[in-house]
C-alpha cells in the first residue's frame, strides 16, 4: 500500500482567504489518521486537496512516491465518503456500487461478471445485500452510509478519505458505524484519512490525530500522547479540557446515582 505526504501545502481560495497554511504532514502506509479541529479550520480543504477536488496553491501532495497535484480525482487511487452520502439518486444501490468500476477504461475495466461478483462481495462486507435492487431514497440513513462506504471501498482504493461521514446519524448508529469503520480499516488495511470535529470520534478511531486550527497544524501524534502532552493552549482547550469535561460530567452522573 502507500503513504501520503503533504509537503508545505498551502491553499488560498480565489477570494484571497488562506484556508490551509504551510501544512507538513506524513501519513504512513496503513495508518488511520484523523484530522481534528473546530469548524472552519480547514479540515475539509486539506482532505479535498488530497482527493483532487480542490487545487493546491503551493506545495506538493504525494501519494506513494508520486506527486499528485495535477492528477484528476479518478486517477489517484482513492475512495471517498461524503458527509451527505452523495449517492446517485437515479441508480439502484448495485449500480451505485459498481459505477466506479464501470467507469474504468481499457484493460483496467473488469469483466461484467467480475463487477457483479465485486458488488456482491462489497455488499456482503457491509451487510446491504438485501438492498441492492433498491434506490437510495428507499434506504435509511444508516444504510445509505453503508452504501457510501461500499462505493468508496469497491475499487480497493489505496487511500480512503472520509469527511465527517457520521455526522448525519443518530448517537447509537454513530457508535455502531464507528466500530464498523475501524473494523473495515483493520481488515482491509488501507491508509485512511478521516475528518471530524468530534473529539471522542477522533480519540476512539485514530492511530494518530492531527489537530488543525485556522489552517495551521497544531500538533499530531497518537491520541493519548496528544492528550497527555498538549503543546499549546489551543490543544489544551479544544482537546484536553473538552475530554475532561466529558469525564467529569459522566462522573457526576455516575456519582449521583451511587449516593
Amino acid at each position, binding site marked *: 500500500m502507500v503513504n501520503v505526504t503533504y509537503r508545505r501545502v498551502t491553499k488560498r481560495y480565489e477570494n484571497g482567504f488562506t484556508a490551509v497554511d504551510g501544512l507538513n504532514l506524513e501519513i504512513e502506509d496503513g495508518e488511520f489518521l484523523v484530522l481534528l479541529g473546530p469548524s472552519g479550520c480547514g479540515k475539509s480543504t486539506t482532505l479535498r486537496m488530497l482527493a483532487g477536488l480542490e487545487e493546491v496553491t503551493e506545495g506538493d501532495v504525494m501519494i506513494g512516491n508520486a506527486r499528485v497535484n495535477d492528477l484528476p480525482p*479518478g486517477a489517484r487511487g482513492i475512495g471517498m465518503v461524503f458527509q451527505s452520502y*452523495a449517492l*446517485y439518486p437515479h441508480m439502484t444501490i448495485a449500480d451505485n456500487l459498481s459505477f466506479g468500476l464501470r*467507469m474504468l477504461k481499457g484493460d483496467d475495466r473488469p469483466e461484467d461478471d467480475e463487477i457483479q461478483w465485486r458488488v456482491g462481495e462489497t455488499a456482503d462486507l457491509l451487510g446491504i445485500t438485501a438492498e441492492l435492487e433498491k434506490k437510495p431514497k428507499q434506504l435509511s440513513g444508516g444504510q445509505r452510509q453503508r452504501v457510501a462506504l461500499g462505493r468508496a471501498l469497491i475499487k480497493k482504493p489505496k487511500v480512503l478519505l472520509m469527511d465527517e461521514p457520521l455526522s448525519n446519524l443518530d448517537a447509537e448508529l454513530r457508535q455502531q458505524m464507528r466500530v464498523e469503520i475501524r473494523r473495515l480499516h483493520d481488515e482491509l488495511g488501507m491508509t485512511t484519512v478521516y475528518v471530524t470535529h468530534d473529539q471522542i470520534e477522533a480519540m476512539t478511531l485514530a492511530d494518530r490525530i492531527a489537530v488543525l486550527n485556522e489552517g495551521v497544524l497544531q500538533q499530531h501524534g497518537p491520541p493519548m500522547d496528544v492528550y497527555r502532552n498538549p503543546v499549546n493552549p489551543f490543544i489544551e482547550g479544544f482537546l484536553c479540557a473538552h475530554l475532561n469535561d466529558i469525564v467529569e460530567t459522566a462522573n457526576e452522573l455516575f456519582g449521583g446515582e451511587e449516593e
Partner: protein
Amino acid sequence: MSSMDNMPRASKSDLARRWYVPQEIESIRSYYPLVLIVALLSVGLSLIRANQDAIYSSTSIVLVHLVVLVLLRQLDHGTKNIRDGALAISGIGLFLSILHHLDGPSLWIDIWFTAWAAIPFVLVLAAGSMPMVTLWVSGRLTVKAAELGLRKNKMMAMKHSHALHHLILFHAVAAVALPILWILDVALSPENALGGGFMDEITGEHFEKLISSESFWLWTRNSFIVSIGTTLLGLALAIPAGYAFSRFRFRGRDSAMFAFLLVQMFPGVIILVPYFLVMKALGLLNTSLGLILAYSVTALPLCVWMLKGFFDTVPRELEEAALVDGCSQTQVFWRIVLPLSLPAVAVTALFSFLAAWNEFLLALTFNTSEEMYTLPVGLASLISSTGQAWGDFAAASLLVSLPVVVLFIAFQRFLIEGLSAGGVKG
C-alpha cells in the same frame, strides 16, 4: 396561580359556551367576501351594458349583501334581534336578486350572476333559522350542547371547505371547458353557423374537408418540422449554457445572464424588423430553417434560466463523488447531472415546442408563400381569404390542439416533477 385555582367550575365549563359559534354561521362569514366580489362584477356588467335599472338593482344587491355580512359578524349570545334583522334583510335581498334577473337578458352569464346573488341569501336564511342557531343567539344554549357543537364544528368545517374547493374547481373546469365545447359546437355545425343551439345539428364536413385538403397537411408538416427543430436546437444550446451558468464562474458570467434577461424584456414586435432584415440577408425567408433559428433564439433565454435553476439544485457533492469514481467533467454531466435533470429538460422541451407551435407573428412575416405556412398562419388565412370559414377554422383549431394535448399527457409525470424541483435529493 391562585386566581386559576379560585376560578369557579361554572366559568370553566362556560368556556365552551363562550367559544362556540355554529360552524354554518362561521363558514358563511368567512366565505362571504367571495360573494361580494361576484356581486361587484355584476355591477360592472350592468355598467358595461349601460342598463340604468340593472345598475341600480345590482348596486343595491351589493349593499344588501354588505349589510347581511355586517349583521352576521355581530351575531353572538343574546343577539336574537340582530339575527332576525339579518333574516329579514336576506329575504329582501332574495327578492331583489330575482327582480334583477327578470329585468335583464338571461344569457348563461346572467343566470350565473343571479345564482351567486341569490344562493347566499338562501343559505343565510337556512342557516340562520336553524334551531341550534336560534338557541345560540338567544343565549339559551346549554354547556353540554355547546361542547357537542364544538366537536361537530370540526367535521363541518372540513365539509364546508371541501364544498368551497369543489365550487372553485368547478369554475376552473368550466372556464377551460366552455370555450372548447363552444369551438366543438362550431366545428360540428354545418356551414359556417356561429349561433344556433348547442349540438343541434352534427356534421363532420369541416373535418373531412380539412383532412382531405392538401394544404392542411402541408402546414401541419411545416409546423412539426419547425417545432421539433426548434426544440432540438434550443435544447442543444440551452443545456450546455444552463450548466455552465450554474456550475462555472467565468468572466462575464453575470453580465451574460443579465443580458439574457434583458433581451426578454423587448416586445417581439420591436425585434421583428431587424429579424426580417437578417433573414432576408441570409436568404432564409420562406424556409423552415429561418423560423427554427428565430424561435430557438427567442426561447433561449427562458430555457437557459429554467435549466440553470434546476442544475443549481443538483448537489455538488454528487458531481464530486462521480469525479472520484473516475468520471471526467463531461462524463459527470452526461451520466449524473443530465439524467437527474430529465424532468427539467422535458419541461423546457415542451415549452420550446409549444412556443414554436403557437407562434404567429414571425411565421406570418417570414414565410409568405402558402406552401411554407405554419398551422397558425394557415388557419388565419382560412378566415381572411375564403370569407370567414368559421367551421373550418374551428375544426382546424381542434386538430391543431391535439398534439399539444397528447404532449401534455405524455409529459405529465415529468411536468409535475419538473415544476416541483428539488425532488432530486438523495
